[in-house]
């Protein structure tokens, strides 16, 4: 596989200039995610009201794949219901695990589709899914 199948422009853009990497003054819920083996660390901050994810942001350190994945996720889940957001997390994780490959079925992942080829890099799967597992944990405990 060619490197630019993984290090796509979308990924580069989000890792160099993340839109949502900051603290959230109005956070109702924060959740830490960590990959001990590689040291990726994020703290997800969410504003959840009336079953809706109103705002999402994050802080932390990690590789381009984990940072871009988190930024893209934050953008995607804003304005979604908790149920929808968790559904997206499930779908994204399934995509990276290679369980769902059908483009149509994955369409709602929007920009996150740019990370699809990480499925072919077993060493980096953990980096891609960190944010989404953390999101799932956050929304699970928010209930």
């Amino acid at each position: 596989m060619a490197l630019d199948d993984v290090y796509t422009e979308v990924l580069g853009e989000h890792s160099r200039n993340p839109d949502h990497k900051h603290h959230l003054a109005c956070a109702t819920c924060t959740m830490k995610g960590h990959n001990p083996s590689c040291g990726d660390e994020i703290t997800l901050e969410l504003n959840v009201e009336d079953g809706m994810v109103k705002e999402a942001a994050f802080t932390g350190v990690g590789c381009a794949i984990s940072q871009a994945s988190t930024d893209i996720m934050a953008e995607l889940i804003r304005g979604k219901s908790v149920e929808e957001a968790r559904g997206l997390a499930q779908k994204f994780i399934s995509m990276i695990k290679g369980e769902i490959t059908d483009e149509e079925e994955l369409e709602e992942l929007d920009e996150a589709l740019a990370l699809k080829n990480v499925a072919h890099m077993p060493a980096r799967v953990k980096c891609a899914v960190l944010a989404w597992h953390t999101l799932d944990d956050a929304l699970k405990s928010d209930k």
Partner: protein
Amino acid sequence: MADVQEFLKDFPLLNGEIDGKHIAYLDNGATTQKPHQVIQSICGYYGGCNANPHRGAYALSVKATDIYESARKRTAQFIKAKRPAEIIFTKNATEALNLVAYSYGLQNVGAGDEIVISISEHHSNLVPWQFVAKAKGATLKYIYLEEDGNLSQEDIETKITERTKIVAVTQVSNVLGLKNDVKSIVKKAHSVGAVCVVDGSQSVAHMAVDVQDLDCDFFAFSGHKMLSPMGIGVLYGKYEILDAMEPFLRGGDMIEYVQEQESTWAELPSKFEAGTQNVGGAAGLTAAIDYLEGITFDRIEAIEKDLVDYALPQLRELPYIELYGCDSKQDNKTGIIAFNIKDVHPHDVATILDNDGVAVRAGHHCAQPLHRYLQQNASCRASFYLYNTREDIDRWIAALKKVRGVLGYGA
């Protein structure tokens, strides 16, 4: 150095292809590749000599016992131990260090005592001492670093005190690649009545080691970082100290008499080798020692030095590369180069290098406290060995030059 190729031919993995590419293997700090002499010795053991040593009266078992015990003798000669009984086989350096922590540390450290280690220790020579300190109400103290990455001489002088019971240091840091003057640390430890544990994991395959000259009380290393198979490691300990220690693991082969309610222990070294041991691994270790001594450490050091001297000036020309432990004021740099590329996380660097068949390590290298001390979250590490060539370095550096571009940064 054309004659370096002479050794490369002995390493089947490096001559083969992985995903269609010859690999430039620069992760020798993690584990080394194995020469066919070692692979053959393991096959030879399982193909013609396998039996449970020490247990059977038949010829095959005697043969297996011979192989195992001659590995012990060979290892004793290799690190210049006084006697073979001072060599305990373990599964790796980590187990060897835990053996010392459990069987020496828990017995000899008490409340208010101190254990002194350095900030550049591998977790294997750090976490066991945290455990002992916590369990006994002792204090774990750290020797920090000078600007150039070497251990602070002042800390060595002031932190090792009358309260110190154990000093544990690595002979070569697995991140910074700097050789510590362990002989003088041992002296300092002894001057206050402490024992000194030396982690030889990153030294023993790269330089001649003489445990009697160092006068250390314990010395630990793994076979797999010195051309041997995984699963065989070594703890050297001074006879009188080992003899006075309680066993670590209990069971078969380590006993003298077993009564219903109590047991007595076998003599050294069996006391510390409970259960069936890794004889195939020991056979591989013997072959590795033969191989290394055939080459000589003078030669190995010269090869590694040539590679470091060849790589460093080229790395220094790249403005976006930050190097760690490469400006030592002493002549003590080994073939390990830790680095970061500006703006790029080490894991991305490693992935991009891997795409060109260059294998380096990325992460905290089991040295989180050191990375925190250096204010780095993680780093990349290239580590060389006797089969590496200048061509490997060329490939590494060519690939490094691509990294920032792949992520969309300007040079």
